[in-house]
């Protein structure tokens, strides 16, 4: 057994513990040391994971897979974690204790990494719980804020419910097939109704995590109440982890070609209503965080389209779009965090006249939202192209058409925010101080969103290599 394959995970776990201990040993006024260790440590681990990207092999008898698919997602989670930490640099001043906040972000990242690499349902579940329990605490981290507490409680109750549903489904699958490793499942799957019920329950459990309609009700309230950096992290990384686990499970364990259970049709219907509901409800939102929550529901629908296609183009699209979505969504939420830091509000009126107060923030918000809407030359366009091309290839033309029409609808509410920022008036014209760290995050997001849109080649090639592990 080669433990060096697990080095990335071991490093992340150690970093989390070190940050926690730093917070215990040092007095509260030296909190910045813990956040510094967390940030630079995560950055170094990110560099290491780029360096060891080509590492492959299964350990613990296939319970844990180290392959390009998992490595791609590990890269995504670590990138998102670094961006979120940059974003919380100034925001975290309102927390009573910073060290725990950063330690919990790191533990959540570890959980996501386990999810994307797990080759067995129980390991997958443990990873999922590590991620979700860390998020329960992080969502309620603004102790004096009522909305944050309410969001934390709601997330705890609904998250536990969805975990229970997932476990219930796993128990069905285990009872009727006698195995839970992805490798040995295809041979033992039969056409029994109870087994199909188990698979449907597993889909429902994941659908909660990636907020697919009709399991999306928690999303707006929790995204609005949580601290903004955590909302950003929740919307990009926890969703990507859900997609990674779902894609690996259904592609390797439940082959759609065998027709034991045609899950693509079920997911196609879910994707269609998610895209429709997410975009249509977003049209009426007055709060930017809520608007981004509904937009993120719609985005989950688009990514699901790639999984429905279940072919090279579609899966490549899932990976490509997940990565692109990280930069676009974190960029948008970083601007929201900066505005919230300054005004204390996240309503759309807080953003009016932003182009005069902080031209950089307004420009980043506009570019990121155009990327989310899928307007070329932003990266979102290339991602949606892969997703919808994959759907058309595998015969889901109607789904691609719904996606395209609803993308056009989404331009309206994205540009509504841009309109407020550029045409709207604001009584205060003073500049808005963002802080250096957040500015770095903004620049990374905006530059990568444009670069990957103009020149999507390298990332798409990387995604192409990564999906070979699960095809």
């Amino acid at each position, binding site marked *: 057994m080669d433990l060096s394959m697990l080095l990335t995970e071991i490093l992340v776990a150690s970093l989390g*513990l070190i940050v926690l201990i730093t917070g*215990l040993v040092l007095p509260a006024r030296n909190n910045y040391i813990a956040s510094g260790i967390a940030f630079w440590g995560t950055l170094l681990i990110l560099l290491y994971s780029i360096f060891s990207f080509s590492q492959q092999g299964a350990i613990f008898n296939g319970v844990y897979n180290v392959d390009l698919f998992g490595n791609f997602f590990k890269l995504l989670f670590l990138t998102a974690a670094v961006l979120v930490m940059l974003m919380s640099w100034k925001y975290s001043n309102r927390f009573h204790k910073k060290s725990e906040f950063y330690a919990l972000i790191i533990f959540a990242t570890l959980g996501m990494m386990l999810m994307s690499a797990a080759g067995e349902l129980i390991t997958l579940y443990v990873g999922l719980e590590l991620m979700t329990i860390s998020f329960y605490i992080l969502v309620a981290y603004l102790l004096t804020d009522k909305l944050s507490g309410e969001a934390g409680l709601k997330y705890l109750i609904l998250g536990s419910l969805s975990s229970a549903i997932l476990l219930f489904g796993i128990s069905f699958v285990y009872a009727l097939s006698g195995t839970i490793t992805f490798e040995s499942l295809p041979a033992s799957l039969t056409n029994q*109704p109870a087994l199909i019920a188990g698979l449907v329950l597993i889909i429902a459990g994941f659908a909660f995590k990636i907020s697919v309609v009709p399991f999306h009700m928690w999303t707006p309230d929790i995204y609005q109440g949580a601290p903004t950096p955590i909302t950003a992290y929740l919307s990009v990384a926890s969703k990507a982890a859900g997609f990674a686990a779902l894609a690996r499970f259904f592609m390797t364990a439940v082959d759609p070609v065998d027709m034991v259970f045609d899950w693509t049709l079920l997911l196609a219907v879910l994707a269609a209503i998610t895209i429709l509901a997410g975009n249509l409800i977003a049209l009426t939102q007055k709060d930017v965080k809520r608007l981004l929550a509904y937009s993120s529901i719609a985005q989950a629908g688009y990514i699901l389209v790639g999984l429905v296609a279940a072919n090279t183009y579609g899966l490549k699209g899932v990976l490509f779009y997940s990565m692109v979505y990280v930069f676009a969504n974190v960029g948008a939420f970083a601007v929201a965090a900066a505005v919230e830091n300054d005004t204390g509000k996240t309503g759309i009126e807080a953003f009016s006249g932003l182009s005069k107060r902080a031209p950089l923030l307004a420009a980043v918000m506009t570019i990121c939202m155009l990327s989310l809407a899928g307007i070329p030359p932003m990266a979102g366009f290339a991602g949606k192209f892969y997703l919808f091309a994959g759907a058309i290839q595998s015969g889901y033309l109607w789904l691609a058409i719904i996606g395209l029409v609803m993308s056009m609808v989404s331009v309206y509410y994205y540009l509504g925010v841009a309109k407020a920022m550029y045409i709207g008036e604001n009584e205060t014209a003073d500049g808005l101080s963002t802080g250096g760290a957040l500015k770095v995050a903004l620049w990374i997001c905006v530059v990568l969103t444009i670069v990957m849109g103009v020149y999507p080649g390298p990332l798409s090639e990387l995604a192409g290599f990564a999906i070979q592990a699960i095809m």
Partner: protein
Amino acid sequence: MGDYPALGLFFLLTVAFPIGAMAAAWLFRPKPKADPLHEKYTTYECGVDTVGKTWIRFKVNYFLYALVFLVFDVETIFLYPWAVKFQALGLFAFIEMIIFIAILLVGLWYAWKEGALEWH
């Protein structure tokens, strides 16, 4: 497919039974005319009448104790099979177990430092 009719029957029974029980109770119970609520709100078959209001706050400390206890309770479950097979597992498993316990001890240290073990 053989077992599914039986399963379906059980499902129907589980739905029908509580409905039937509640319907029968509604049908046969006496229906008092005057002030039916007062008697209903008193303590029923489980101890003496309460003194004062029951809607008071309970201390959360107990819950914290329980959590810390649970962590070390579960740790013991892992320690038993390890101890039984200690000779066969060797040095590697010993180091692994030390790391496992060290991680839990960090948790205990944290709980202690945050005051979870003090009864205020």
